[in-house]
């Protein structure tokens, strides 16, 4: 039993991008996504459906949009999106409809709310912090240049030679 478990683990434990697609292929046959019979006759509506599909997660897959996945549930969701569009829903109506049934988890772009505040604000805050750090470090920089860098006389000479050779 233990060897069996080990073997199963070995089988699934694979490497970086290689391993990657291993399991994925086992779960779903090669990605095929949108099937010809799903495509809507109205090209504008179809384009809207495709754009929305890219924003929705296939819930039984790992990290794929329903547009990329050919799992049956992804197909159901794609059909649902198209039904709502045919029924005259706007894009946001369709999204609300899907989120009401499946929760925020279905959104590949998480909604902006309290629990995702850090996620959404961190790029801006980090950038601001970086700029602030940069400015303060240039301001408090001591007016001392390269002397006293801890090089011995021989090392300094060697370094100078290297630098001279390069220029």
């Amino acid at each position: 039993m233990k060897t069996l478990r080990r073997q199963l683990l070995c089988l699934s434990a694979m490497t970086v991008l290689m391993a990657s697609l291993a399991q994925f292929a086992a779960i779903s046959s090669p990605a095929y996504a949108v099937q010809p019979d799903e495509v809507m006759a109205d090209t504008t509506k179809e384009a809207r459906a495709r754009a929305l599909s890219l924003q929705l997660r296939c819930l039984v897959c790992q990290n794929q949009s329903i547009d990329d996945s050919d799992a049956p549930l992804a197909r159901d969701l794609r059909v649902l999106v198209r039904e709502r569009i045919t029924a005259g829903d706007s894009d946001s109506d369709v999204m609300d409809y899907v989120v009401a049934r499946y929760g925020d988890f279905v959104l590949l772009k998480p909604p902006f709310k309290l629990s995702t505040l850090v996620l959404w604000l961190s790029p801006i805050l980090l950038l601001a912090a970086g700029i602030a750090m940069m400015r303060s470090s240039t301001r408090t920089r001591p007016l001392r240049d390269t002397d006293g860098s801890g090089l011995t006389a021989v090392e300094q000479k060697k370094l100078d030679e290297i630098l001279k050779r390069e220029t």
Partner: protein
Amino acid sequence: MIIEFGHFALILALLVAAFQTVVPAIGARTNDARLMQVAEPAAVSQLFLLLIAFVALMHAYITSDFSVANVATNSHSTKPLIYKISGVWGNHEGSMLLWVMILALFGAAVALFGNNLPPTLKANVLAVQASIALAFLLFIVLTSDPFARLEIPPADGQGLNPILQDPALAFHPPFLYTGYVGFSIAFSFAIAALIEGRIDAAWARWVRPWTLAAWMFLTIGIAMGSWWAYYELGWGGWWFWDPVENASFMPWLAGTALLHSALVMEKREALKVWTILLAILTFSLSLMGAFIVRSGVLTSVHSFAVDPERGVFILGILVFFTGGGLALFALRAKDMRIGGLFAPMSREGSLVLNNLLLVTSTATVLIGTLYPLVLEAATGDKISVGPPFFNMTFGPLMLPLLLAMPFGPLMAWKRGDAYAAAQRLMFAVIAALVVVVAVYATFARGPWLAPFGIALGVFVMMGALTEWATRIKLGAAPTAEVVRRARNLPRSNYGTLLAHFGVGLMVVGIVATSAYQEERILVMKPGDGVEVGGYTVAFKGASPGRGPNYREEIAKFDVTRGDAAIALLEPSKRVYDAPPQPTTESGIHASWRGDLYVVIGDDQGGGAYAVRAYFNPLVRFIWLGALIMFIGGGVSLSDRRLRVGAPVKAPRSAPIAAE
């Protein structure tokens, strides 16, 4: 027998690594030359022992020795030879062996080629490098033994996942690992410098070639994975912002920042503290990548083995080296002197901006990747962070980076003149504006921003050429002088030119294919035709076929353009014998305009098939750009080796040899 020999060599390598971790470090501390000198033979023998172990495992794969558990689970006797070999690293245990072997390879390279390093620094670097190898060797020996035998060998193996049986993917991991692991050298140098408490321009000079080598291989490794995904997965995607992809992308971003900050440190002795921190963080991100990939904590398309024991072990390694490195940094950083003053508008200033944007984007990717995990652990809420989030946050950070990129190399050190640089870039700006108009004229459709995106790529490419033209005084000096200058321009300048040009080319490819892809999804009967990307694609029917270890249905499509026959595409659907798994093989016709990409889906009865046909404009620029970046790295590396790594007489003889 050979397997036991390999196993024994692996354990010996572990002991050598333990020895190499301790003895040279003591030697450096007590200033005992003999103790320090043992680091070199130890590093070389560690590599030698791991080579023996690796070759032993490879032998078992080539001879299909199914008494070895690892071979039985991951190989099959009918597999073509090349995939028997690549199967060695196509699994967790074997890939870890490859990982430590590359770790030892870099260590041995420092031991052999680092003749110009001060003895204590060299001893410390090799000791730190050995400690990393020691941690991973312990991991392999205790949790992931590739040499374990089976009591009852099976008649045949379980086979390698068929979608991994592909030439590009066979060599993707070695390149990727060389990149990942190569950053360990920068880490070891940083730790050694912190231990010694001495950091100067020379340090950056020693570290930069290793970082550059790692960066090159990571670049090409990621590009190979992306290229493979494009033609193998059957829907023409080339990047998915999947956690596992992000795991390789984060060290790349941080490594790119490190390359640029080390440049400032080398030339101007500024940003020392920052560069050391970046060296620690870059390798930490490599370790985090290993953790993400092998622990199964994150769900990805590439869902991995969930083995808590292994995951915890790697987490331990990550915490030890990152935490230890950062703690040491916190203790020592305040003693480091800040040198090299510069104005915000200068070469240094532009490189600081580069670092700011690259590090922020690294952090954005990191937070996006880990956020769902942390949130679920903290509150139980489940959210998804997918491509729309990353495109929305990462894109705006890349925009100023790409805009500023051509300015940097045109600015002088210390105090630059942005206005003069802008004047020099006039030609690049005009070229970009022409491209905007041309793209609008060609494509009436698509997002209105797309032509500007393509123009931005062109601006970066032209900016790289402008810098070169300025340096050789193209158009401002007699031809003979220009030729002489072009010849004498250091190779590292050519390296920068190529790498920046490659980035521009990649941007053009990414924007063009994202904005202007054409797609047709339909059912085709034999005799049906469809128009896509200016081509007419006619379905000729499908027939069954048989490969070495798979059955397939091959469809035939005649591709014509106007009256001219262009190509015969043969996309297929395969089912492999072991394991019995379906794959799609795309039919691709490549040209400079872009790729015609055809895949077939389900049999719809009566000889009809579901068909997807795409036209992906300029998509090859993405990988061509990466290849040019790789070559640029190589050109730059060849320059530095001549000047620094080689003995003193080399610079005199080298130019003659180079003619």
